[in-house]
């Protein structure tokens, strides 16, 4: 069983600040996905990272996959109230292509105007 840790669990910051959320494990993953969930909705995929060291940008969001493919980070620049939500990482182990995803415990992010 993989041990998956997300940190911080809760984060409340002011609009315009920067923040980084982390997803760490002792296991190696073939890929990792980040989802964002807003209240009353299901999670929505933000990005999939596949290659060790890969960096992907989605507007003000920057996602990085660790070189060893055991960890990932999500950095938000100049956070806005619309970024508020639950951020979930979901790694996929090798050969787990058609399995349901296991999600981290998530980071509850609140951006105060």
């Amino acid at each position: 069983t993989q041990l998956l840790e997300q940190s911080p669990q809760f984060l409340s910051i002011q609009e315009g600040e920067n923040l980084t959320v982390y997803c760490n494990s002792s296991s190696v993953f073939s890929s990792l996905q980040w989802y964002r969930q807003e209240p009353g909705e299901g999670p929505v995929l933000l990005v999939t990272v596949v290659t060790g060291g890969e960096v992907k940008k989605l507007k003000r969001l920057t996602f990085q996959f660790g070189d060893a493919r055991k960890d990932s980070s999500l950095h938000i620049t100049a956070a806005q109230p619309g970024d508020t939500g639950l951020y979930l990482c979901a790694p996929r182990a090798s050969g787990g292509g058609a399995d349901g995803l296991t999600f981290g415990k998530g980071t509850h992010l609140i951006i105060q105007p």
Partner: protein
Amino acid sequence: SAVISQKPSRDICQRGTSLTIQCQVDSQVTMMFWYRQQPGQSLTLIATANQGSEATYESGFVIDKFPISRPNLTFSTLTVSNMSPEDSSIYLCSALGARDEKLFFGSGTQLSVL
């Protein structure tokens, strides 16, 4: 992409009763899953809904408590049986996209058991 419609969106039920949640996908998908999300928590996979055969349950979840049907490639139901207050949670249906292993989710069913 896939659009998932889930109903009911919320319900309040009495202890000992059962509730069936329906999930409709607007396109044929190979894999469908049911998740539970307890208040303020992350998602926990309940089971994989297999088309034409019995669902595959994760550890801690059993068919008698959470019977699942999937009669075709676009529809599935989850029943929460003999409910207790501990079953109060959000139940989410999801489907795996064919191309990039992206999971699509319904908006969830918020269940409260009194």
